[in-house]
């Protein structure tokens, strides 16, 4: 890929952070969502994969500069975090002991995730900007006088 392909990779990186943001927001928004059995909300997580990085065989073999790993959101999975049990006997979703299962979303972890997402997005945007300005300057080569 030439330098123009870099812009695609940085865009893909921003898409990934966007997907992570949506999932993190969904987890935070659903901290009080209750339900019994399979209807219960379980915290979601984004799985990002890159076909080229996985197809790469033994360590040490050079990558093709024309095909560098492009990140793709492979799937959004439900995590296996244990629910938080809260005593609330009047609640319609309470079990026989009066306990209500709330999703095991850790607010601190979620907020840290948001910071990491924001930094990741900024870094991709900055990379995009740097590439664009280098390309622009290259195109201006020989224009003076």
């Amino acid at each position, binding site marked *: *890929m*030439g*330098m123009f*392909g*870099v812009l695609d*990779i*940085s865009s*893909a*990186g921003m898409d*990934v*952070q966007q997907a*992570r943001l949506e999932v993190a927001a969904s987890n935070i928004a659903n901290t009080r969502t209750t339900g019994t059995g399979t209807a219960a909300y379980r915290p979601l997580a*984004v*799985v*990002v*994969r*890159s076909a080229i*990085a*996985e197809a*790469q065989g033994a*360590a*040490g*073999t*050079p*990558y*093709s*500069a024309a095909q*560098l*790993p*492009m*990140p793709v959101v*492979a799937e959004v999975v439900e995590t296996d975090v244990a629910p938080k049990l809260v005593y609330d006997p009047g609640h319609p979703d309470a079990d026989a002991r009066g306990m209500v299962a709330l999703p095991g979303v850790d607010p601190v972890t979620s907020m840290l995730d948001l910071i990491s997402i924001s*930094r*990741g997005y900024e*870094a*991709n945007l*900055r*990379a*995009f900007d*740097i*590439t664009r*300005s*280098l390309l622009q*300057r*290259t195109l201006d*080569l*020989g224009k*003076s*006088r």
Partner: protein
Amino acid sequence: MLNADPVIALLSRALDAAALRQTVHATNVANVNTEDYRRLEVIYSAELQRLQAAGPAIDAQEALQWAQAEPEVVESAETTVRLDQEMAQMAENAVRYQALLGAIERTLGMLRTAARDGRE
């Protein structure tokens, strides 16, 4: 006499390498959350290391021979991507890229001056 061709060829090769570095840094940043991703870096083949061991290049022709070495993209010994380091290296590489562009610009300027019989 100034033989501008090897100089421009040499600068172009260096510019290609800097462009490749920019690509690889951007790829690392984009894949910061990718499963099983191992950080990539640009290295030079054994050919260049052999030439380097032989001593510094002294003229453009010999330097051009050096520049025949192909840069390769390989997995780095440091496998995890650290955003701050990656961005710092990207900024440094961007400065180098722009310095090379400036050098090409000035070489073209000298050719332009020569083509106009020294008249500006």
